[in-house]
């Protein structure tokens, strides 16, 4: 459903809603996968991101997102200098991720402490984004909800247990998707929620013995 606030917005640093604002949002989502500003980031740019990214500040916008700056933050302009000062070690690489991916696609590998994550996402236009892969699991995350992502052992009742935990915290599930690479293998769960979940909820999920890891992705789009 189209919202008039999507049309009259977002407020953003120019020049391109797809190459700047969308790129920043992808950086913001990748940051969440390691729970904060990464120490190292390897950013692969595909297609139009690779060809016209520099002129659109795509590199600055992704690095800004990794540091937690939002698309309307005018520090995006100087994000690369700020990253150098703050000790975010970033690298860019122009590459072809696959033949059939969206023209504005990036694969971002982030490391923070002992945690490392790989995210593939595309900028679809007008600032809208779609994360299509996390650590090799196919996903579809738009960032228009507060989202919890987790990897769990494939045990019976896992979905019910998580749903009950969220219900106890008075959180309303908008969508819930489960993917597995193989039968009996680890399950990747994406839960989109209407209200922002607090740290306590994430911690309670992490305490479940069969959950390998869980992260909270910020709502980055209207």
């Amino acid at each position: 459903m189209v919202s008039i606030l999507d049309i009259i917005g977002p407020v953003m640093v120019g020049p391109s809603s797809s190459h700047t604002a969308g790129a920043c949002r992808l950086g913001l989502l990748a940051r969440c996968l390691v729970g904060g500003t990464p120490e190292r980031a390897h950013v692969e740019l595909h297609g139009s991101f690779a060809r016209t990214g520099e002129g659109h500040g795509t590199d600055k916008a992704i690095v800004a997102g990794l540091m937690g700056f939002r698309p309307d933050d005018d520090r995006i302009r100087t994000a690369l200098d700020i990253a150098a000062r703050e000790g975010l070690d970033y690298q860019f690489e122009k590459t072809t991720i696959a033949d059939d991916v969206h023209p504005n696609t990036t694969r971002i590998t982030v490391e923070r402490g002992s945690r490392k994550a790989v995210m593939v996402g595309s900028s679809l236009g007008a600032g809208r984004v779609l994360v299509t892969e996390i650590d090799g699991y196919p996903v579809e995350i738009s960032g228009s909800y507060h989202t919890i992502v987790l990897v769990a052992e494939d045990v019976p009742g896992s979905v019910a247990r998580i749903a009950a935990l969220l219900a106890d915290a008075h959180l309303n599930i908008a969508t819930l998707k489960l993917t597995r690479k193989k039968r009996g293998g680890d399950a990747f769960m994406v839960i989109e929620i209407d209200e922002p979940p607090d740290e306590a909820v994430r911690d309670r999920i992490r305490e479940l013995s069969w959950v390998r890891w869980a992260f909270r992705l910020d709502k980055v789009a209207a």
Partner: protein
Amino acid sequence: MYRSLAEAIADATARGITLSQLAIATEAEDQGRDPQDIRAALMRALVVMRDAVAQGLTGELRSQSGLVGGDAEKLVSGPPGPLAGTPFRDILARALAVQEVNAAMGVIVAAPTAGGAGVLPAVLTGLAAAKKIPDDRVVDALATAGLIGAVVADRASLSGAEGGCQAETGAAAGMAAGAGTEMLGGSPQQVGHAVALAQQGTLGLVCDPLGGLVELPCVFRNATGAAIALAAIEMALAGITFIIPADEVIDTMGDIGREMDVRYRETAGGGLAATPTGRRLARERLVQIKKH
């Protein structure tokens, strides 16, 4: 939100309300948000729009390539033309100003997109200044613009990569024309004709940015888009009607976009981007950006 302007116009007329009132009521219902919240968000957008106009009019900004900047200010202090002293000239300056800010990585409202971000603020803030229209009515106009844009997004496209520039500055001209018509007292029917009149004037417009960057001709397309919106407002308020309904003009824009060769959809493969000068500037500019 509505998927047809004809339906929205019929509903607004039946309920005896304006399209902006209908837009805010529908948005509140769709999104489960308080109407005052929606108005507050639109007011924040208006503040950013005004700031961008003011910043661009100083003439001090340059894009990374150095090719864009300083032209808005020429319409302020440069020699007069036939439009000197009119709101028309001021609105052209405002459209250039916002798009110069965008090219210089300043803060703008993507309405509907960053590449077409100059048209709507130029027309609405320019007309509001000329006609001394209070902010709450400009906020109303932004809601109407949002409704029109939502219909275009649903029936056609708001992306240059999908539909060419007709889907960016063209859609912006349609939004500004309808919103400006309502702001100056036009009926919902007149808003519909204004949208159709503006959109028919941008059908087929290609997206051909030099080097693939949102700089040239984007900055000037925003000024000419604003001019088309003003022409449409003037005609609609004079009682001129357009024989093809706005929904069908928008559908036509979508059809043309789908049939448009990929060279004309933001790939810098055709149009002005493919001219000898366009190619040379793109080469030189990209080198310059790398050195930056």
